């Protein structure tokens, strides 16, 4: 980061405010530099990136590894066991067959750990006996193969084929499966939306409130407000911190999308990218509105110690947005997805779930942006009027009606 963004003028007099960099830009730049040189912030970001990488990495590893199982069967059941071994999808589940002379031998093989399971025909059908816990992969494969085999046999007895029996059912089955995958992903990404918004709104909220109080507490604010208009100071703070927050969010989202591309959900990256883009747009509007409120909350305090109490209502609001995104269902969810600031998280999530049309997103965005503008206006008044009051904590009413 350089400290000069324009050439040094040597021919001009010392002060020509008209030609100088806009004050809000200077403030924003300072906020960014301060944040980017703050070790706690950098480590926090790095830690989050590692978490995301670790999580996706584990997903990729988990999806790609092959589980090997040994199944034992007595000679009478050997045919079915061989078929399971033959038809197992080898990239995820590989099955070996260990022959056993009789039921007792099969049981002792499982107990000794030489075989993972014993496949045998019970009174009501096939049974997969394991020692003390089920192996999900093996169970699924065995169920699939056994079902097919039994269906084939019974179809033959009825003088028909499995294909005929299954005709008409296969298409709907595979569609159901695809939806299930997407909705599982939507659930996860939706949670990520809510969680990241919560983290960003809270961590940057406190950062903004603190940077306002720092100026009040160190009294440097009096020098600054006699140098530039107060609205520039507020705008610079919001813009600077929002930029950093958005940059961080884009970084996380990008890493997350790359991560998804590496997992079995890679086909869904295109499905997710649209909502993620929407999420970033909603994030900007929602974050700007909250940032203004956090700045005002910071201005209500006189010392760092006051911040906890002046920002408490905002903490509640951010928590409410987070839990609403997680818990609210049905019509309430649809309604809330238009109500700022809930819309910042809920609308992109609904888009992701495929439950909202593009025009709904536009309406929600316009509402959110209008609210952001109104909130910035209100926050500016609170900020301006409480900024130079250093006699302790101010109530909202005091700040609103304080003389300038």
């Amino acid at each position, binding site marked *: 980061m350089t400290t*000069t963004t324009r050439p040094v*003028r040597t021919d001009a*007099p010392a002060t020509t*405010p008209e030609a100088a960099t806009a004050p809000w830009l200077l403030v924003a730049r300072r906020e960014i530099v301060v944040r980017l040189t703050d070790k706690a912030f950098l480590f926090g970001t790095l830690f989050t990136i590692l978490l995301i990488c670790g999580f996706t990495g584990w997903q990729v590893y988990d999806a790609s590894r092959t589980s090997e199982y040994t199944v034992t069967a007595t000679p009478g059941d050997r045919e079915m066991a061989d078929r399971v071994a033959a038809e197992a999808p080898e990239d995820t589940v590989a099955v070996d067959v260990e022959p056993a002379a009789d039921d007792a031998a099969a049981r002792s093989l499982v107990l000794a750990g030489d075989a993972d399971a014993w496949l045998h025909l019970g009174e009501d059908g096939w049974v997969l006996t394991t020692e003390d816990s089920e192996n999900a992969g093996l169970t699924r494969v065995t169920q699939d193969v056994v079902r097919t085999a039994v269906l084939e046999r019974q179809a033959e007895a009825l003088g028909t084929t499995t294909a005929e029996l299954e005709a008409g059912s296969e298409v709907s089955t595979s569609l159901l499966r695809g939806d299930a995958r997407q909705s599982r992903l939507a659930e996860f990404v939706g949670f990520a939306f809510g969680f990241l918004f919560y983290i960003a709104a809270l961590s940057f909220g406190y950062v903004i409130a603190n940077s306002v109080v720092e100026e009040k507490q160190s009294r440097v604010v*009096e020098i600054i407000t*006699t*140098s*530039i208009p107060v609205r520039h100071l507020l705008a610079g703070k919001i813009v600077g911190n929002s930029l950093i927050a958005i940059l961080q969010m884009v970084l996380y989202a990008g890493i997350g999308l790359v991560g998804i591309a590496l997992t079995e959900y890679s086909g869904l990256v295109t499905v997710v990218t649209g909502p993620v883009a929407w999420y970033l747009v909603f994030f900007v509007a929602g974050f700007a509105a909250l940032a203004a409120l956090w700045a005002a909350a910071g201005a209500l305090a006189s010392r760092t110690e006051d911040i906890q109490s002046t920002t408490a209502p905002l903490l509640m609001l951010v928590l409410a947005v987070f839990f609403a995104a997680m818990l609210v269902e049905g019509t309430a969810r649809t309604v809330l997805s238009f109500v700022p600031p809930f819309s910042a998280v809920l609308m992109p999530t609904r888009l992701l779930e495929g439950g909202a049309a593009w025009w709904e997103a536009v309406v929600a965005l316009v509402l959110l942006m209008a609210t952001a503008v109104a909130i910035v206006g209100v926050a500016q008044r609170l900020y301006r009027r409480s900024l130079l009051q250093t006699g302790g904590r101010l109530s909202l009413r005091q700040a609103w009606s304080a003389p300038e």
Partner: protein
Amino acid sequence: MLEISELTRRFGDVTAVDGVSFDVLGGVLTGFVGGNGAGKTTTMRMVMGVLGIDAGEVRWHGRPVTPQDQRRFGYMPEERGLYPKQRVLDQLVYLGQLKGMSAGEAGRTAEEHLERFGLADRARSRVEELSLGNQQRVQVVAALLHGPTALVLDEPFSGLDPTAVDAMADLLRERCATGVPVLFSSHQLDLVEQLCDRLVILADGRVVAAGGADELRSQGPVRYRMTCEHDTGWLREVRGVHVVDLDGRSALLEVVEHGAEQVVLRDATARGAVHEFSLVRPALADIYREVATR
């Protein structure tokens, strides 16, 4: 010229500043004197636009002052403060830029001023690592950096060591000589007396005296010190003078009737030798005490 006209500010039921008027002329060092709570800081904050005005106005070059004018003033608030974690030079460059300087100019000027205050080697230190006195010097630099069109300094000398006081006084004289109006408040009356061309004395939110130092002194009591060969007790009986202090052969007289001192001198020489007869100029502190408690 900066004109302060009938400025009034109330805080609830308390009128902190009550119809204060005075001028700060270009090229004239104006000292602002008054006890705690007299209204100096409130007045200066109104002049800078930091505090709203209930009545009256501040005029700059004959028209109402605008925020743009105020932004080009140099201001040193009563309560000192800078960003504690930021490095001295970076901070000065930032504050200079906020005043409309380029980073390069701000950097050069800041280094020059730091040099003057003997802080050149602390330019890369964080503000919080500096002593309070040095932090104050940095703040003075911040107020002067952008070549202000007027200076409003609230207690610029408090907390400075004698060397820094001299450097500060030189700087103020220098700025003043370029035609910039300078208003500064101080509790250090001897310093104000030595430095200022003009004084404004505030008490209970009102201007109780204003004018040049000599002018103010001339409003004070006229006193003579006399030392004679003989005892001066007879002075108590002389009309037209008041004996302030008498110690055997030495006395301090206050002239009540104009010309009475000449009568006293004649009488004294008639009684014997007179070793000393001199006019005693009242100290500013005496005048201040008198007007402030009047």
